[in-house]
């Protein structure tokens, strides 16, 4: 069983929701990312999504854009992100890692080279924001062969028939985008999310997670019962961009707030 599947089924047995934390690899530098990953796991993050910086992140709000820019000041490359995962894996064999980013850096490395390195180094899944179902077959053929999960997005605008097609090609978990907008936006509407996720759940056996616009305990508790997990990105990235000496403390406070909201009865 893969790490993603194992993590979700263990949490399910305990009747718990997954807390998925997103930070940008190399933001503000690779050592900080490595330390933050370790800390996040220790404090209760169940799955880590690592952003792979790209110069033109079309779907990101200001927080993650700035995170990408900070990572690119040091010219953080996909190659280095894969090395970061490798050294993380030497300590942690259990926490799933998903690489999230945009098509161009991945295709620049090439699907064959990327897939074999990713699988060797312990990457569990990829989520390529601007590579929808229609454009992904060539790339995902390679990754899938090597057991890397293809995490797919479902949006508020996605029709039921399209959800079916997407779920048929998804693995790992399905990521529901909670709002029409960019990452970190403010407009999450729990009622709308409830309706759409209800439909989505009826169409897939895979775990469903909700992301975009969840930044604290309050927003987390508004959607937690609808899904198997939540994704928090911009709020963590903001902390990584703040004063270095405060990163550890603020990450711990944020994770505590989110964990409580996810698991209080």
């Amino acid at each position, binding site marked *: 069983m893969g790490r993603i599947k194992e993590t979700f089924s263990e949490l399910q047995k305990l009747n718990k929701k997954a807390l998925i934390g997103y930070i940008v690899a190399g933001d503000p530098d690779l050592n900080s990312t490595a330390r933050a990953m370790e800390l996040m796991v220790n404090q209760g993050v169940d799955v880590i999504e690592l952003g792979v910086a*790209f*110069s*033109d*992140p*079309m*779907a*990101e*709000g200001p927080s993650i*854009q700035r995170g990408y*820019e900070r990572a*690119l000041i040091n*010219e953080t*490359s*996909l*190659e280095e992100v894969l090395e970061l995962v490798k050294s993380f894996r030497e300590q942690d064999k259990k926490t799933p890692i998903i690489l999230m980013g*945009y*098509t*161009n*850096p*991945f*295709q*620049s*490395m090439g699907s064959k080279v990327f897939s074999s390195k990713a699988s060797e180094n312990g990457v569990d899944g990829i989520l390529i*924001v*601007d*590579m*929808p179902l*229609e*454009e992904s077959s060539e790339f995902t053929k390679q990754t899938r062969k090597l057991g890397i999960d293809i995490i*797919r*997005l*479902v*949006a*508020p*605008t*996605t*029709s039921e028939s*399209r959800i079916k097609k*997407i779920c048929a090609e998804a693995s790992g978990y399905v990521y529901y*985008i909670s709002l*029409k*907008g*960019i990452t970190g*936006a403010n407009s999450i509407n729990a009622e709308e999310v409830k309706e759409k996720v209800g439909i989505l759940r009826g169409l897939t056996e895979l775990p469903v997670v909700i992301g975009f616009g969840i930044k604290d305990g309050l927003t987390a508790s508004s959607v937690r019962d609808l899904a198997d997990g939540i994704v928090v990105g911009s709020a963590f990235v903001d902390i990584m961009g703040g004063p270095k000496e405060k990163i550890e403390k603020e990450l711990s406070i944020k994770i505590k707030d989110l964990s409580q909201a996810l698991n209080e009865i």
Partner: protein
Amino acid sequence: MTKKDLNVPDSKGHFGPYGGVYVSETLVPALEELAKQYELIKENEEFKSEVFEDLEKFVGRPSPLYFAKSWSKKLGGAKIYLKREDLNHTGAHKINNTVGQILLAKHMGKTRIIAETGAGQHGVATATVAARHGMECVIYMGEEDIKRQSLNVYIIKILGAEVVSVKSGSKTLKDAMNEAMRDWVTNVDNTYYIIGSVAGPHPYPKIVRDFNAVVGYEVLTQSEEQMGKMPDLLVACVGGGSNAMGLFYPFIEIAATRLVGVEAGGLGLDTGKHAAPLNAGTEGVLHGMRTYLMQDEKGQIQETHSISAGLDYPGVGPEHAWLKDIGRADYTTANDKEALEAFKELTLVEGIMPALETAHALAYVKKVAPSMNHEETIVVNISGRGDKDINIVANLEGIEL
């Protein structure tokens, strides 16, 4: 090259390996709907006559095909004809596309218009049609471009549109496009995004090409009338590539006519400071499309340089990438200096001041015309007029206006 090669894009928006729909899931259904609505309406007689009426009475079409007698004589070779898109309302070819797309937007029930702009010409053309149709309009423009095209920024504001200064990345056209996409994904229900070039995700490269193709169709008729034959060579500048695509498209199946696109050579291809992805770029994915890009070996998009804001873009429309690969069109470059010389020469010799974008095409004509004979003809697309660039030219000469 087969018939099939020319019947592009396919239903998924692919021009061979190029084009496509590389966007986040939220926008996929919106783009599918746009493609569907466009295919339905483009054959609708009422819609067609509405567009035609606007092109004739609002834009001022057809634009003349003007024989540049003095310049032809000076260069001493081929006969040079200028397709006068600079005479259109708002001073460039960009209006051909916005007139069509805003009617499409209205048909789809949208009430808010957004657009990106580089040189400001597409911003002006969009704000103009939005004003006329009484629609809310927001124009995204890079901070750098706002500085160098302040005249157009002011015009856009007078037209009642809001100009949003984009401060991310290189603060130019590519970043304006990222920001417009972010707006669209947020306001997708009521907002129509008028992309200004034959770039972006499907169906935009097709829609923008089709609305600009009126230029090429007019040249077909005008060539027959004025030359009694088809031109031997068509020349146009290429940034995203909309004026070139509009001119080339009806000629793609006319094998006797050579097609040449001219990219911005900036300070020279060897300096890396240019905007010539077809000449010096590699394949990649940006702004929803697969095409040739200026990028580093790690897949990050590079900053570009050109004297003209309208060509300062690291990508190019996917149909140009395809025409290059199948050998139907050739793509060359003109650098800043050559463009500036051509800008001055046409103004001085013909009394027509071209945009700095257009001047790149003219720089190539200067090079190639003397090597052709007097019976041969060149049509060059005067994609826009030069008033907007007068500050840039004056600055380069050390003159404060």
